[in-house]
């Protein structure tokens, strides 16, 4: 899956959680919890959705790596690459 598709998946799932926010206009380096006002329940919903859609099981210990849009895309890309090998 290309880098662009992953970003789209991440944005779609964040959009499901925060439908009134224009995700495309969010600073990709900003802390999502502040930028789109999501809590730990929302974040867990996001992680669960990523697991369902992309088959990646993200452990709790790695959560801090996914708190920005860029971070989430980088992490998921890396793990999908690992999965392929």
């Amino acid at each position, binding site marked *: 899956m290309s880098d662009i598709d992953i970003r789209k998946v991440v944005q779609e799932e964040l959009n499901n959680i925060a439908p009134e926010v224009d995700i495309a206009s969010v600073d990709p380096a900003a802390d999502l919890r502040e930028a789109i*006002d999501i809590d*730990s*329940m929302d974040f867990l919903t996001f992680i669960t*959705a990523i*697991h369902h859609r992309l088959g990646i099981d993200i452990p*709790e210990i790695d959560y801090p790596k996914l708190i920005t849009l860029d971070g989430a895309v980088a992490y998921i890309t890396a793990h999908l690459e690992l999965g392929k090998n």
Partner: protein
Amino acid sequence: MPSLGADMEAGTLVEWLVKPGDWVKRGDVVAVVETQKGAIEIETFQSGQIEQILVELKSKVPVGTPLARIRTELEEKPGAVAAAPPPAAPAVPLAAAPLERPPITPPPPPPVALGAAARARVSPAARRLAEERGIDLSTVTGSGPAGAITYADVERRLGEAVAPPERKRALWLDLGAMRTAIAAAMARSKREIPHYYLEHRVDVAACEQWLTETNAARPPGNRLLIGALTIKAVALAARRFPAFNGFYRDNKFEPATAVHVGVAIAIRGGGLAAPALHDADKLSLDELMSRMRDLVQRTRSGRIRSSEISDPTITVTSLGERGVETLYGIIYPPQVAIVGFGKVVTRPWVVDGAIGPRSVITITLSGDHRVSDGHAGALFLAEIGKLLQEPDKL
């Protein structure tokens, strides 16, 4: 048309989920009604067969209006001497809540739905798949015999989870109307209920440790949040301290037989609701977490059930990890208590005579002083704190 709030006089029928000829059992969602609080799913208290729909879509009718006619199973008894044609089924209001119209006090809530709907049978393969992928079986519709859940049913549910239907906020979630309803309830609470306030700071190192270990071995769909532990602890403590679990009406306290914990849920854009997690004291942590996730999702997309609005016997409120250290709630009448949880913080703490950093949480109680006093309140809070020291026993 049930009453879903003290000031509700009428509701608008926006969706029928059944038609004449369908069979329903008690607790099934049969219609959706639009109110100030958003779209509320109406459950039937009667089991039987839908005979006739009495109210058209989009009609606004007063509280108490019969919505449909149900032929109850009592009239289908085999072996009865059938000398005459079966009598016409009586018109049965879907939520039997007989209404006077007192100016402020709400009518009695519908009968408390004890326990969740009976669990359908689940095939072993379906159960394994559901556990693997973190699907709560109570949200899967079974297509097997007697509603049994098959592997295909769980697969289908997975497909739904992956591509959710239109998730934009339901158009009928009118935040302005919701704010008006909240204002009325909170103003009434402050006017009528003599609140007292207690706070208790509790070590949650054991909870955090247990959660880390437990979640490390689970896929995301099965992980727990500390909110599940705190709600369970409150539910168990409420069972042991009945003065905090029930309703104050007609100048007297009615302790509730069940513990239905209202969970305060913030809705994006400024809304707030506190629907019930039924029988929270009897749920396992996994069931509680799963139901809480479902409740939060439905609340935020504007779909709560009528029993969830009317049944809470005590409420828990928390602002989460981006909130503040201490939160004092306002009691939702006719309840008599609300428990507040601040965010988990690291503070200097004394453990075994030495000072070190420790994760702690501040728990508050706002209690109705007509029903309980500080002594009982302190014991109640202490019990919650004690329960949180042994998360594996919750």
